[in-house]
């Protein structure tokens, strides 16, 4: 990748945490969007490809706020969490 890299801090919760671990820092190209980060992660291996596969069952938060726009460009140091639909209450 020619573009300068940023670091994204990944967090996984619930079934995604069980499949992929708690997360951690990963490098990504400058200008990466939330949707593109998902694709990059899915390309890593079969476990990531599977855990992040289902649109209907994948939710996301950026810097601890629910992500509603997957075209949002991530800044250096952003905290990005992936998790299944919530079931509290």
């Amino acid at each position, binding site marked *: 990748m020619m573009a300068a890299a940023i670091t994204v801090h990944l967090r996984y*919760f*619930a079934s995604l945490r069980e499949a992929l671990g708690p997360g951690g820092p990963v490098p990504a190209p400058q200008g990466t969007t939330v949707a593109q980060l998902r694709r990059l992660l899915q390309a890593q291996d079969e476990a990531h490809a599977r855990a992040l596969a289902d649109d*209907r069952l*994948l939710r996301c938060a950026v810097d601890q706020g629910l992500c*509603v726009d997957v075209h949002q460009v991530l800044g250096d140091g952003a905290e990005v969490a992936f998790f299944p*639909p*919530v*079931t*509290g*209450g």
Partner: protein
Amino acid sequence: MASLSHLPRVRIQAHDFDLGAEVRDLRAGDAGVGAVVAFVGTVRDRGSAGSPQLSGMELEHYPGMTEKSIEAMVDEAVARFQIRAVRVIHRVGPLALQDQIVLVAVSSAHRAEAFQACEFLMDYLKTQAPFWKKEHAVDGSSRWVDARVADDAALVRWGLDDVAGNAPPPQPAERP
């Protein structure tokens, strides 16, 4: 809203809570309170009497985001409804059948606003706050509880960024 309590209005905790003590604390010293509505959610077994299916459950959350997002929603409730004080407690970690999971308590001058604000906050906790339940069955198996995806307000339109034809199906607006 004038906070009348020395305790934080939003608490995420592993230990149980005392409904009576929380309600007393919520309305202490405020003679303008004419109504308190408190909702308590508890761990429910899916089985029938005599043949339980669950042995308990476990609640996971997203530390930091949980508190921040509920605080923001309490601010929203205070802006929308004529209420005087709010208390939200959500437990995390291992829970047994019949344990209390969540408390939302609201005080107001009149009952209508307290009922509305309490339901507003519970709807938010069920559909958007980052908590996940894992059920433990009596046979030793365990599974994450499926969300009712159709009324999930946090639905992400991943499909917009994907190739045509991979968009999620339209979501029905009605609750089951």
